[in-house]
């Protein structure tokens, strides 16, 4: 693996991870795209040495075709995922007028209740008392 591939993988993964932790779905999708490219480079760079295209009859050392086949599949699957994710973002926009991932309502309610009970000095919320 060359130092350049190494750095490229590092940057792609870092940038991808960073984008994945965003709230905007478009940014998340960009993150998926970047990190997906990172994975593809990773598999090729670590799975085989550079060489000639693996077509029998070509001169020289042929590159390992298996990682290439795996990555080809991964590229297409990545495209499928991205397409669906962007449609999801689009649908989100047509509903809410933004593409942000809202927090889960029920979870927030539990959090709020837990905070309340903490304030009230361990008095349980009426709803929580067993019936």
């Amino acid at each position, binding site marked *: 693996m060359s130092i350049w591939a190494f750095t490229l993988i590092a940057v792609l993964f870092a940038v991808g991870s960073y984008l*994945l932790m965003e709230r905007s*779905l478009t940014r*998340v999708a960009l993150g*998926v795209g970047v*990190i*997906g490219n990172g*994975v593809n480079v*990773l*598999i090729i760079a*670590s*799975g085989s040495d550079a060489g000639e295209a693996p077509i029998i009859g070509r001169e020289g050392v042929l590159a390992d075709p*298996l*990682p290439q086949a*795996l*990555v080809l*599949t*991964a590229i297409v*699957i990545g495209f*499928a*995922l991205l397409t*669906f*994710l962007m449609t*999801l973002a689009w*649908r*989100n926009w047509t*509903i*809410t007028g933004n593409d942000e*991932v*809202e927090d*889960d309502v*029920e*979870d927030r309610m*539990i959090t709020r209740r837990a905070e309340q009970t903490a304030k009230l000095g361990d008095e349980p919320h009426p*709803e929580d008392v*067993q*019936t």
Partner: protein
Amino acid sequence: MSSLVALPILIPLVAAALMLVVRNLFAQRAISFVALLSSLATATAVLVDVWNTGDIAVSRLGGWPGSFAITLVSDGLSSVLVVVALVVTTTVLLFAVGQQTPDEHSPYYHPVYMALVAGISQAFLAGDLFNLFVAFEVLLMASYVLLTLEGNRAQIRSGTTYVVLNIIESVVLVMAVGLIFAATGTVSFAELPERIAALPDGVRMGLHLLLLVAFGIKAAVFPLFSWLPDSYPTAPSSASAVFAGLLTKVGVYCLIRVQTLLFPGELSNVVMIVGVSTMAIGVLGAISQHDMKRILSFHIISQIGYMVFGLGIGGAVAIAATIFYLIHHIPVKTSLFLVEGIIERNTGSSSLDDVSGLARKSPLLAVLFLIPAMSLAGFPPLSGFLAKFALVRGGLSAEQYIGVGVAIVVSLLTLVSMVKIWVGAFWGEVAPTSLINSVGVLRQHRSMATATAILVGFTLVIAVAAGPLYEFASRASDQLLNIERYISAVRSAS
């Protein structure tokens, strides 16, 4: 037999393709049922054969030698899981057709559902790490579509959580597969064990951990489970029932493979700790909730914890118990979600604040809930009791007293939450808002009720036939631990 192994994947896929050409609803339903039932028939034939001969059935795709071709491997564990999965998906389809909304709502419901079934079968059968990844993608993509089938606000919101985290899972998985290839030069399950064993400790551990994280996300173990309770409750109940029953179990199945075939016995302490904390955290989440679907969703996590705990203990006894647990839990969990689906269909809500007095309205529904609920809580003589007790025995003989202690407390808390649902939804005054139609809840939805009853009956069969079934689980566990057997079966397959 080996020629039949691939059919539970191919038949649903052919059905899915056909249904894109034939768009008539009636025809779609017919094709779906025919496809699932015929898949079930072939899967059962394979299971019976595997059961009788004790062999491992291998299908080599393309007819290439097993050492480098993609293989489909049906050993004891795989064959039984495929059958259980098909039973569950068939009954849920019956439920969905009775519910009518999903397949009338979208012309794509049936083809996508078929793809989901194919993906699940393929994941159980895959004898190749990359093919397993592909199978995961098939079932995940199908689950994305099913989860957002109605495309309403709640589904999009929760669907996003689900999709994003599962995409991360896919990324981690394909990365792990790529790195495993980089380190070993193969992705075939039969070739990997020897080559992995030869790797230096650090690389082996890193790859192992990556796989655990990937499958851990799918299996929803602590601390990777958070997507599950936020996404399952909004899905159409026919979809969430399959997801709850099956999808996480695919993750558990893969964890079993990782811990027995690829990295046998390694990092078992990590796995055990993860299992114990998963069951505890899951049940704490469950008793915090006020919505049936959310309670049940958190329970999935908690129950997964039990299985992972068993896997962490390791050894033939505990793994047999884990397998039995896995088999029992699929129909139990699915039927609970189906009961919830019927309730929601009738009352328009799954919140315990809105529903009450159902036992009075529909005693049969109460029974249909009570049996799997008590099974889940581990009450004898139901299947859940046997599974839990077998696991407790395994834990005790391995002297994992802390784990067993937690398992017992979790069991009690499981009871607490099941009782919470029972007391909230089934006892009490009949809520005025509940039950749009006051006459017979189940009579209105005959095929939904039938589907639920079939599954509940299936859980009872598991309890009654526990003897032979456990024997099978035990043999499957021995098979899992005998790696050489797996390798030679794949290599010598013809």
